[in-house]
């Protein structure tokens, strides 16, 4: 699925940087019913992780009542050049990933 990632392409060593992620997902709560009364099954993202050169730096558990297309923003310290890897895992075997690179000077 489509994802929008905002990581600065360049940063100074030791600088605090903001990472913003937005991914496409319906986040169906599992509490809603159709017009004829059938329960709409839950379909949400349950977990998000961010790895910085292989080391996990941020993790979030997601629950029903989080809006569709979840947006997450967090901070980290730019230590070395390399790659951020993002992974979203959810119901019905949902899995999506994205990555972004950074140059640290």
């Amino acid at each position, binding site marked *: 699925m*489509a*994802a*929008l*990632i*905002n990581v600065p392409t360049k940063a100074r060593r030791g600088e605090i940087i903001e990472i*913003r992620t*937005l*991914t*496409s997902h*319906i*986040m169906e709560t599992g509490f809603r019913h159709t017009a004829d009364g059938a329960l709409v099954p839950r379909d949400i993202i349950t977990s998000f992780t961010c790895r910085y050169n292989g080391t996990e730096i941020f993790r979030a558990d997601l629950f029903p009542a989080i*809006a*569709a*297309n979840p*947006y997450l923003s967090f901070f980290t310290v730019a230590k070395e050049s390399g790659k951020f890897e993002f992974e979203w895992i959810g119901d019905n075997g949902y899995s999506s990933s994205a990555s972004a690179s950074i140059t640290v000077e």
Partner: protein
Amino acid sequence: MSFWRAIAAAALLATGPALLAGEILPDARRSGYSFMGPDTRAMQDDDTSNPGMLFVLDGEALWTKRTGSADKACADCHGDARGSMKGVAARYPAFDKALARPVTLDQRINLCRSNHQQAPALPYESRDLLALSAFVAHQSRGVAITAGDDPQLKPFVDQGRDLFMQREGQLNLACTNCHDDNFNKRLAGAPITQGQPTGYPLYRLEWQTLGSLERRLRSCMTGVRAQAYDFGAPELVALELYLMSRAHGLPMETPAVRP
């Protein structure tokens, strides 16, 4: 005598040319953006936090994907959308010669699918149709709206204006009662806007998804307890056309974010 003459002269000056009572003057036209709070504005302004951009990305992928029995992609005829589609959405709904009536951008996409790609029409409000129209309309971001300028559209713009002025539903309200006469005030907690359709298809936080102008119009009609027109109905297209001509000169914002 001169007193009455002065009143007659004043009355003549007060009635502008071809403007109905309550219509918004061109200088006073404002996008729904200007009625929003700073948080929602920031969300729209930053392409990495605007959820509408997710649909634009999907649309970009669909643009180059071959489909239908003709096995053609949009890009096979139209090339790079950044050039070929710039300004297109700003003049839609546009007059279709073969059908002798205006068609919306969504209808144009489906006409292309059936005539040139030999593919089945995409249902209204389906993810793929919204993604494609968002991608096409996004190419016109910043372009001034010129829809309705085509003289062949005149009767349809007039029909749309009549519908806009027509009271309907159990609440017996016309569009004009809120969007011409009472914008800038509030309906419950929400600001009443001028109803300028500058950013469609747009991401509405209430919907938690992208939606078309027709979906918006239908929810307004339900709001006044009227029977909403079906998607693609000629009345809905005429209203859409009048609204776009009413927003003449305002820049396109697709994909906009609205509360």
